């Protein structure tokens, strides 16, 4: 019997290599958990039928003495990442029967290591949302309280890991889609520097914001998955080289900047504020220096995001027209084909964002919305580079509140406000991590909270460092 609740990738690697259990044993254990829980939680949209065969192949590799960090490790993949010959739908009706014709670069890299893909996980349609309530295939439930959302859009990947239905997972993060669900479900969510992980084979939403992110139980595991999938790729023209950004020098003492006005601002729940203040005190005890930072345009981040992202999404989604693949609705002529296919294939939130996007890009409003948003984006980049001259990391809560009740946020804007802390990292392109920071009891249920660190361009290692220190300390200090 493998204890999946306490198992980590690091631990599993040792046990697979020393033959305490086989990859088939491990995959079978996960399939057992999935059978028990997935119906209720709806984390997976599809469990692959060849999981045990993949595991057998991994065992043969192990037998030959091969060892890679993810060899034989069962992973969940968000339904927006292409695996050749397998279905990928972006949780949309428009791609319901679409089969990928090539492997995403991240998938090719995981295959080389012999990782085992358990299945594809639920998401908001085209990754548009923060709760998976916008999926065309039903909401993913939070394992800590089945009446609440898992967060999103990578809710399926996060719940798969949080409920021991996968040892790790890939998600995508355009405005917090890995970090916010990770905070809601009490695990680690990682968003790399823009361009660090290839986007080739990721179904695009906002191309200047999209990143493939890592989901794991702890920082060390997130780092293992990140290391496996990161690297320059000629197939993604926005991919960066290892040398694109200067290496950060190792420091004895890290300084953490806190934008207090935003972190304890309007719309942040009392429980989050209290947890955040406690966490800052704890970080001080751990030897981190805390410094106030004030960024004058930081409060603009969310508005800037909700202009740039739909603008880019409306452009990216134009390709789903029913001509070459996916859903096809036939009309009297080609234009009618387009209209009917898109009308039948896209869900409400996707339609909303396409319309907002085309509106802010339209000739009459371009300067007022998209043009202005890009100007603020540039200004924010400058403000952050200046801030990062005096601090190594910037700390905020991950989300302004705990996971909300399913159906509770029925107007789009109230759901968008949940992204207030996470969108900035995508607008800037810097790496960020969400770490579990404690539990709050709400009507008898214990709900997780999270904190988020942002680091300068290319400084992923600072996030891994602070994450590991914070986790070690959490075992000793009770929040």
């Amino acid at each position: 019997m493998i204890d999946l609740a306490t198992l980590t990738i690091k631990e599993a690697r040792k046990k697979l290599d020393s033959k305490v259990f086989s990859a088939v044993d491990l995959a079978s254990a996960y399939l057992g958990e999935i059978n028990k829980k997935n119906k209720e939680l709806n984390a997976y949209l599809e469990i692959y039928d060849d999981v045990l065969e993949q595991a057998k192949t991994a065992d043969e590799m192990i037998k030959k003495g091969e060892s890679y960090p993810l060899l034989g490790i069962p992973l969940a993949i968000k339904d927006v990442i292409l695996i050749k010959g397998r279905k990928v739908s972006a949780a949309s009706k428009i791609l319901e029967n679409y089969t990928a014709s090539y492997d995403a670069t991240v998938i090719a890299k995981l295959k080389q290591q012999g990782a085992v893909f358990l299945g594809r996980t639920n998401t908001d349609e085209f990754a548009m949302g923060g709760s998976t309530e916008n999926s065309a295939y039903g909401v993913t439930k939070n394992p800590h309280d089945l009446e609440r959302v898992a967060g999103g859009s990578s809710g399926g990947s996060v719940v798969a890991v949080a409920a021991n239905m996968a040892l790790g997972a890939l998600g995508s993060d355009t405005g917090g889609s890995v970090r916010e669900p990770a905070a809601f479900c009490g695990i680690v969510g990682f968003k790399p520097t823009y361009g660090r992980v290839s986007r080739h084979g990721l179904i695009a939403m906002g191309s200047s914001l999209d990143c493939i992110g890592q989901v794991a139980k702890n920082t060390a595991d997130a780092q293992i998955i990140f290391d496996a999938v990161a690297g320059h790729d000629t197939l993604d023209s926005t991919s960066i080289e290892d040398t694109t950004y200067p290496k950060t020098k190792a420091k004895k003492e890290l300084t953490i900047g806190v934008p207090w006005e935003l972190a304890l601002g309007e719309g942040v729940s009392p429980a989050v504020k209290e947890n955040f203040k406690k966490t800052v005190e704890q970080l001080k005890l751990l030897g981190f220096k805390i410094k106030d930072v004030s960024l004058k345009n930081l409060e603009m981040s969310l508005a800037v995001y909700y202009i740039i992202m739909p603008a880019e999404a409306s452009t990216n989604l134009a390709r789903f027209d029913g001509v070459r693949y996916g859903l096809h609705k036939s009309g009297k002529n080609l234009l009618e084909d387009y209209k009917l296919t898109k009308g039948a294939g896209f869900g409400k939130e996707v339609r909303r964002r396409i319309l907002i996007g085309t509106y802010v890009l339209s000739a009459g409003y371009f300067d007022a919305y998209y043009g202005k948003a890009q100007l603020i984006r540039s200004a924010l980049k400058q403000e952050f580079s200046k801030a990062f001259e005096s601090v190594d990391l910037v700390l905020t809560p991950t989300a302004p509140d705990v996971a909300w009740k399913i159906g509770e946020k029925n107007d789009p804007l109230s759901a968008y406000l949940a992204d207030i802390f996470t969108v900035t990292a995508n607008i800037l392109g810097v790496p960020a991590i969400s770490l579990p920071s404690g539990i709050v009891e709400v009507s008898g249920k214990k709900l997780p909270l999270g904190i988020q660190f942002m680091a300068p361009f290319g400084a992923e290692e600072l996030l891994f460092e602070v994450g590991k220190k914070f986790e070690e300390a959490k075992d000793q200090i009770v929040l």
Partner: protein
Amino acid sequence: MELSEEEKSSLLADMQEILNYVKVIEKAKLHKSETEYALKNVWREDLAASAGGPLPDFSADLITGQFPDAKDGYLKVKKIL
């Protein structure tokens, strides 16, 4: 994109609310009136892996097999003009 009358009115209300919110960008304190882009062109050879290029092997069968309408291996599209 085909929208029903009912949907148009509910989407319009949502759009007004969202646009009203994002209008806060009017209040941004900016010094510059031009966006600074640090952009450059990135080129690669457009060659498939089988021809020694960087492109992976796409499955032609998976691509053509998913055409909604095809004739002799070609994608069939309704006439445009």
